[in-house]
């Protein structure tokens, strides 16, 4: 050890203590850091420090063919990769004027909702772990694993599926998949009362999470918050309902909201969204066998496909908020510019810095997990 690196610095006396809530920390979802100024236990200011997961996606995507980017794109958001693929495919379909067949659209909706279920189970499992309750985390991860099994059966990969391409999906749904999916949904619904008893109505958790990271609706709109975090302040807005894509306008579902704006309400919104996702999936399972047809529309040779020039901005509701892709094409076989707007770009940086002021040090991890901020989306 080098003692000169550990000498105390002479500073004027102050009550502030600067702490590096660093990248190596189990209370941070992923690889992200904060510089927190503390007064005892209370946070005076926080400054987000990202870039630990930066891979230069936007630059990489300009150097690969249109179809090669499908392999890159799910890796931008690790817990919830399917909306990324679907959004990119929708953008190219809009540019290229492709008509996705109806069966493919229903399969895409099924995948999106499965991914939303998996991401929410992971999210509130993580939130429970930050309050010290590890059992919901174990349950959440175990139930999420069953969903990943279904993903593996459908697409071949547990996490990164690479199943959506511009024009449709790659393979047909296997035989018996819908029955297994249906029994999985029955199992998940039967687990919800257990989760309620252990976690959502647990007085310890409610006391811990109430009034932590509270924001009003005006603040949320001003800071650019989207997704379940915005619905937890009372505004009923969902990209699936108000800017519909795929076949969401033919499906019947509610949009749950909660009036408070704190960590508890965000959790309760996610719990209600679980129920709504299960409801959507049941409708899809019921309708899918009766929709026949191809699963993708013909596209030109993907290795030499010049997408017509233009630009397109597509939005999708991922489990974390509003996800948007802006794709510019100049008629070549590689994209000219792809801009990914991840929902956590707002949540992990500005909103967290604003909400952390005034709370206690142990609540920063809770706020981060309750906002479901995903660092790979911020860093791209």
């Amino acid at each position, binding site marked *: 050890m080098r003692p000169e690196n550990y000498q105390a610095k002479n500073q004027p006396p102050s009550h502030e203590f600067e702490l590096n809530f660093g990248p190596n920390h189990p209370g941070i979802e992923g690889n992200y850091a904060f510089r927190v100024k503390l007064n005892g236990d209370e946070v005076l200011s926080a400054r987000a420090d990202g870039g630990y997961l930066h891979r230069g996606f936007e630059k990489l995507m300009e150097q690969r063919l249109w179809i090669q980017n499908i392999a890159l794109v799910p890796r931008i958001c690790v817990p919830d990769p399917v909306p990324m693929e679907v959004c990119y495919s929708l953008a190219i379909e809009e540019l290229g004027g492709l008509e996705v067949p109806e069966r493919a659209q229903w399969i895409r909706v099924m995948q999106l909702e499965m991914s939303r279920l998996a991401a929410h189970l992971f999210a509130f499992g993580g939130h429970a772990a930050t309050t010290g309750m590890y059992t919901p985390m174990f349950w959440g991860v175990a139930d999420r694993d069953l969903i990943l099994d279904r993903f593996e059966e459908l697409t071949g990969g547990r996490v990164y599926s690479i199943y959506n391409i511009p024009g449709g999906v790659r393979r047909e749904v296997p035989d018996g998949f819908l029955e297994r999916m249906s029994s999985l949904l029955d199992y998940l619904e039967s687990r919800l009362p257990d989760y309620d008893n252990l976690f959502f109505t647990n007085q310890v958790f409610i006391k811990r999470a109430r009034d932590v990271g509270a924001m009003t609706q005006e603040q949320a709109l001003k800071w650019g918050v*989207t997704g379940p975090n915005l619905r937890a302040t009372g505004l009923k807005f969902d990209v699936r309902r*108000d*800017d519909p894509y795929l076949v969401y306008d033919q499906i019947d579902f509610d949009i749950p909201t909660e009036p408070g704006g704190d960590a508890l309400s965000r959790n309760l919104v996610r719990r209600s969204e679980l129920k709504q996702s299960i409801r959507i999936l049941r409708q899809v399972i019921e309708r899918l066998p009766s929709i026949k047809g191809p699963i993708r529309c013909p596209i030109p040779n993907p290795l030499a496909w010049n997408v017509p020039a233009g630009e397109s*901005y597509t*939005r999708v509701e991922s489990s974390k908020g509003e996800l948007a892709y*802006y794709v510019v094409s100049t008629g070549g076989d590689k994209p*000219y510019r792809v801009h990914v707007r991840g929902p956590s770009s707002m949540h992990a940086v*500005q909103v967290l810095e604003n909400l952390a002021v005034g709370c206690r040090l142990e609540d920063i991890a809770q706020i981060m997990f309750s906002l479901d901020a995903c660092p790979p989306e911020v860093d791209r």
Partner: protein
Amino acid sequence: MSKELNLWLDSLLSDIESVQFRRKNSRRVRVDVASEALPALLELLQGRASYVHLSAITCVDWIEEEQFELIYHVWSYETNSLVSVHTRIPRDPGVYLSIYDLYQPAAFFERDIHEMYGLYFEGSPDMEKFILTEWNGPPPMRKDFDSEAFVNQNFHWEQYHPQWLKDIEEEGGGITTRPEDVR
């Protein structure tokens, strides 16, 4: 109801000079405006047409035309439509105004564009580097930065010579095309 709002928006936009707009479908509008008039247009959209949500600010590098194109995507919760405002600024000084006082989410995007493209926004509260704090090369997203050449210069690759290949080479065979030649 939304058709009337769309018609009202179209008439509002066509009244302003130096603005060209094109409606793509019922929920997407594209507006091209000169760079001096952009903050005023955004203020008008926010105040009178309830476009309170800034979805993203994108920058596109048109290197042949020596311009940066900035695109502001704003969304309205009431009319449920998205307006993408395009503007172009010359590449050379690469300075523009910030719209932080209108939309707070702009701070993140402007910071991101500053470190990725080298474009400076006056009036933005925070122009410090966020992602590339330990990077001292050129702004990486510009079209004149070749990422592959940079990688080949600064890193080297693992030598891949497994046993089965050695066995084949002993018998007289080997690789016909090296991967570097294919690329």
